[in-house]
């Protein structure tokens, strides 16, 4: 494979379900070795896009090439080189943890001996070696997720697709998964993932697109998106239970911009501390003040007027 050819290339990609347009003409290029993310709220069209890239769902319109191949005609050939972790786990509940891996390996054409060896490695990778003979059902959510990701690695894929790999997991389980995914990334595996966690996107993605309503509303590295669409720092100001709209006018002019959320007001500023001093100088008495670095959450809020996780 040539280094220049993108692993995924989409132009004007559309997915319709009846009259409903779930993906509304998106362009993407994913380069080899890259960790590429789709960030967006519920219903943005992330999974619909991922399923098209996985070559299981057919595009309604537009052009899609995976490894330079056409998913409509070369489905099995492309899928043989992909590793897919779907949004909902679809592990085989009738098989054991190890059998889930060996069976899957056989689907990709590994010999029985290769399948067994690969399963051992992946059990190690997923920290499930001691559960190898267990059925899938009694595993915790985090264990199932790790097994699903391990299963996606069974064919040593050129491209790994992860749809919300850590949604629903507790912080510890998420960090463990992030660490595993980071290892894959370091090995040069190309990752495409979706998430509605900005910290996940910041941790794992070299480049990402922000999706909303089936469209791409911004694209770039986490840093560049923050630089382009937000200020370096954000001051979160709360006023107890009082009507926040009343504070918009008194705060006007502080920092670059002010956004009112249901429970707090965000003041975007180059220098957060200076903005806080200005708030106090104007005689305002917030119940709490927090200065933090700007994040993708703020980018999203700015681009769509909505928060990522409701």
């Amino acid at each position, binding site marked *: 494979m040539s280094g220049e050819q993108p692993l995924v290339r989409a132009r004007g990609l559309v997915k319709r379900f009846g009259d409903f347009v779930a993906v509304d003409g998106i362009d993407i290029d994913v380069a080899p070795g890259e960790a590429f993310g789709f960030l967006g709220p519920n219903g943005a069209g992330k999974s619909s896009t991922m399923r098209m890239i*996985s070559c299981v769902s*057919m595009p309604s319109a537009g052009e899609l090439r995976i490894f330079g191949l056409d998913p409509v005609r070369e*489905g*099995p050939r492309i899928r043989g080189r992909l590793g897919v972790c*779907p949004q909902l786990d679809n592990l085989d509940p009738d*098989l054991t943890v190890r059998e889930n891996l060996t*069976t899957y390996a*056989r*689907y990709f054409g590994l010999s029985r001996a290769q399948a067994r060896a690969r399963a051992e490695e992946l059990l190690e990778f997923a920290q499930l070696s001691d559960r190898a003979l267990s059925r899938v059902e009694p595993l915790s959510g985090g264990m199932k997720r790790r097994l699903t990701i391990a299963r996606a690695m069974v064919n040593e894929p050129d491209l790994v697709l992860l749809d919300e790999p850590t949604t629903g997991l507790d912080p510890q389980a998420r960090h463990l998964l992030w660490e595993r995914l980071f290892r894959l990334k370091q090995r040069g595996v190309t990752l495409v993932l979706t998430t509605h966690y900005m910290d996940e996107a910041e941790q794992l993605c070299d480049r990402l697109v922000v999706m909303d309503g089936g469209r791409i509303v911004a694209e770039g590295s986490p840093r560049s998106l923050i630089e382009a669409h937000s200020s370096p720092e954000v001051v979160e100001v709360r006023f107890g239970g009082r009507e926040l709209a009343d504070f918009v006018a008194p705060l006007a002019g502080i920092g670059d911009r002010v956004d009112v959320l249901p429970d707090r007001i965000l003041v975007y500023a180059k220098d957060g501390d200076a903005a806080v001093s200005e708030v106090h100088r104007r005689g305002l008495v917030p119940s709490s003040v927090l200065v933090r670095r700007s994040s993708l959450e703020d980018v999203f809020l700015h681009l769509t007027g909505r928060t990522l996780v409701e």
Partner: protein
Amino acid sequence: MAHPTVAVLERHLTLYKRLWRASLFSSFVLPVLFLASIGLGVGGYVGEVGGVPYVEWIVPGVLASTAFQMAVGECTYAVFGEFRWNRGAHAMFATRVSVWDMIGGWLLYIVFRVEIAVVVFLLVVGAFGVLSSPWVVLTPLVAALLALAVAAPVTAFSATIDHDSYFALLFRFVMLPSTLFAGVFFPVEQLPALVRPVAYVSPLWHGVELARAATSGAAPPWPVWAHAGCLVAFAAGGLWWAGYAFRKRLQD
């Protein structure tokens, strides 16, 4: 490199490894119970049918009916669940496995299951001395053809329906009539002419007649190629339907 169809078959066999004992036992018990009760008990009242003792006459019918019920039974909830409950079909489809590999591997597994039951059945009834023709060696072939003719459309049906309550319709309006009017327990000629076509469109009837021809050595009512042709048509139609249904479910 193993063909993906083989890998799919292997997955089903992995599961079978856990239940083969129970499954083999029931394959063995069924013909014994049947011979003891219906064959010898009822046979005493019925006497001969078409010049052969009732037991000998009914054995191939029950054998075909066993294959038929197994093919239907295995291809309902198990297939439905792979699409609806655990999405195992979707997991398989995310690999090098194609829709035809999935269907092929599955049907091979069903044929395998049916063959085991049929061979055990033949061994048991053979021990009672009710198999008289050397053509009996073709019975497993008939059973395989019948299994495909039934399993393919039922698998397609199970992949198509949106709710498992449709299986009640399948059992009541397809399974039951085709079992009753398929020449298993009495010759189809005894049915009123109006009802006889029910038998002609039932794959089971064709299977029963071919199986009876094999175990008795007598010619079936229709030419062998006509019976076999009907079964092949059912299998081919079922395959086409299954391919369509699987693709529709998996590529939404």
